[in-house]
């Protein structure tokens, strides 16, 4: 099952370590080269969905900034991310084999 681009990017950002919501938003923007911008509402909706699916977990409130929580990947999230990467790599591999990536 393929992940949506936003989901994939969020998982990717979290694979480098815990982030709070705003941090995820900024990193997604950077990671996608400015192509994917996630609105605040959409971000938390996606996070909520991924938490229910057990891919992402929320930590306790951050010290110094009580309103925010850090999010991190769960082992299951890591596995899903790895599988998605493999799937994408496989697709890229096929594309290469057909000479689509040749310059």
């Amino acid at each position, binding site marked *: 099952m393929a992940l949506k681009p936003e989901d994939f990017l969020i998982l990717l950002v979290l694979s480098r370590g815990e982030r709070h*919501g*705003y941090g995820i938003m900024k990193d997604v923007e950077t990671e996608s080269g400015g192509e994917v911008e996630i*609105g605040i*509402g959409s971000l938390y909706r996606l996070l909520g969905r991924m938490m229910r699916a057990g891919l992402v977990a929320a930590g306790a409130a951050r010290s110094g900034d009580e309103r925010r929580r850090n999010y991190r990947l769960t082992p299951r999230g890591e596995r899903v991310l790895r599988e998605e990467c493999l799937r994408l790599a496989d697709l890229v591999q096929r594309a290469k084999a057909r000479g689509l990536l040749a310059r």
Partner: protein
Amino acid sequence: MRKTVLRWALRLGPSSFRSEFGPEIEADFEDGWREARRGGRSKSLAFTLRTAWDLGRSGLGERWDRHFRRKRRRSMIGQDAKFAWRGLYRSPTFTAVALVALALGIGANTAIFSVVNAVLLSPLPYERSEDLVRIWSAWTRFPRGGVSEPEYYDYQEIDSLESIGAFIFPHDATLAVEGGEPEPVKRTFVTASLFQVLGARAAHGRTFDAGENEPGKGDVVVLSHGLWQRKFAGDPGILGRTIRVQAKSVTVVGIMPAWFQYPTAAVDLWLPLTLIADSPRPRGAHFMSVVARLKDGASLESARTELGVVASRLEREFPGNYPTGAGFGVLVLPLADDLVAEVRPALVTLLGAVGFVLLIACANVANLLLARAAGRQRELAVRKALGASQWSLVRQLLTESLFLSVLSGGASLLLANWMMGALVALAPGDVPRLETVSIDSRVLGFTLAISILTGIVFGTVPAWRLSRASASRVLGAGLRRTMGLDRRRAQKTLLAGEVALAVALLVGAGLLLRSFHNLIQVDPGFETAPLATARLSLPPESYPDQASRALFFESLRRSLEGLSGVAAAAFVSNPPFSGYNSDYTFYVEGMDSVSYSGSEQYREISPGYFRTMGIPLLAGREFDVHDDAEAPPVVVVSESFARKYWNGEDPLGRRLKMGERQSKSAWVTVVGVVGDVRHAGLAASALPMYYRPLVHGVEEMTFLVRATADPEPLLASIREEVRKLDPDLAVFGVETMDRKVSTSVAQPRFNLTLLASFALLALALAAVGIYGLAGYAVTQRTSEIGLRVALGATRGEILTMLLGEGVRTAGLGLFLGLLASAALSRALARVPGLLHGISPMDLPTYGAVAVILSLVVLLASYPPASRASRMAPVESLRYE
């Protein structure tokens, strides 16, 4: 501004989303806004708008998602229900049998509960009815006696009581309205305070003033709603008009609302009870019934304690009225408990018994479900192999049983409605509030609750067993034999339980049957047939003195004796089985102190009473016409009275006097001894009695007419004779003594009928269960049977083998049931008035139940076994 926008945008999403992520979103929004702000005002505005849009969109999206998630959960339930319906539809026989068994079980429970609900559970219709209490005089031999006027004044001083009222138990009276026939009515005399105690106001007009309880002021009357409708067509113009009650003119001052029916539903009118605080009636005349209301904050206990103190004070002050041996005390009971005290034990017992019936029905249906499971094992195993969890299978199976039980619950309401009608018709007339029995919301709730509970009870075991079946075991070969054992054990356990419950019910019913038989065999002490009775109440207005009353009664007696078909006629102040008692203090000559113990009964009778009643005269003579007011005073005593006071010696010629030892009343000489009579009913013991000629001048008398043949035609002639003598008199309670006796055992007959029906129902259900199990066992073992026959087993051997299983199981159930009965019937014996003259361990009953049950077991398991044993071996081998 931006914060408002944010809040509104957030509001579009579900609240759970807001509460989970709200603070974070706010923090992020502020960070983002500050960053955008660095790029200028337009940038920050764009950011705000973009974020608001995004928030609103995702909020709505979230709402949609959640709604959808819920719907999916719902549709899963819908699917279970659809499966359940399909499953039931596909096996109509199973469904029909299960439905009938459950509907009968639930319906019977609903019907009994509706009676329990109306009679025992519903609060009384009075204001703060939980604070109302009934006060009785309690004697060792008479646990519930009336209160005398001086006692009533004593009790008014009690601190715990807010108010206290009194009434005289309803009596017959003649109601005459100008231009109408005299009509028999029930009147009751009450204190004005009674209405206040009960918190009852008149629907029209008023109730009484305290002043109207004073002598000479009580010429007013309050009508019941029923009488007002019946006699005066609900015309409010009756207020202020004058009617004649017992030939006395009284003015109608009020009409009570329909719900007010105190002290009984039969009361037609209330009259002021005359109280004379300055010169009250004697302390020994316990003629009043007392109701009181507890003060706010006062408890039943405090009232009991205070009244107990008063009682011991009275015992000290008036040893003549409260002799030490009589064990005087004051009994205080909550009014609601008091009202239903006599029917509660029986009703609760019946509710328990009918619960057994439902349990049997449950066991039956559970067994049917297990039997049916054979065909479904594969279906379930396949679904399990395809990934259904055990829980989802259990859920589906439970949905099925719940579906079945709730469906039966619905059907049972129809049945309950019908049974309720039968119950009310069958119930003895003196059960209070029986007329309010209906299927109300509480009964509906009860039905729904027991339906669901039933579904869970009979569905759980089969669901669990079935869902546990592992796919490999079931889908592999030989599934029947491997699964069969486990399930068969469950089935046998259920069947044994079912039989045990049925046995317990049968034993209970058997004990009640034997005890009822004993009861109606009891000799009441007189000849009940052919005898007719009728009651008359002479108004003091028309018959002011004893002489005029005696004259009227005597001339009526003579004219009745002159009727053809009449062998003898007599009258008595209180006949047997009337429900009324009367007693007087007396002193027996030669005794140390007081003789009266509170249990001796006093009656005034006419000449020929003993002859008419068929009460044997053991010594001396009856009264005759010469024993009038001028003659020397005489008394006839009963056998037990004579034994009590002149043990073994000749009672004739002995003397006693009315009142206490110091009393100035004349000595009365014993001239005769008669047999004992059970006045209070067949189950009651015969109390010592003494009879006197008409001396006190009682207004109310009951006539007894001994017929030469059928007394039925005499009833009309009695009315006619009374009319001839006084056309303004109404005649009450005209019936045969046989019917009176039969009415007196209505309660035990009701208990017996119900318990017997439950037991029969239980037996039928158990028989169906045994039949089902036997039939099922046969199909299970068909190939085995074929093999055995092929190997040379005879028909008889096969039959024995097949019968053996059912018989062994039922035998175990029978054994357990008899053990349970031994325990349960001890409890039954403790329920007052249920068992009469029989031990709870009555061996003939147990034996009969064992025999009946064994026969039913054999009859029910024989047909399937016999069918199987006749099967040709080839046929049975092919069956697999």
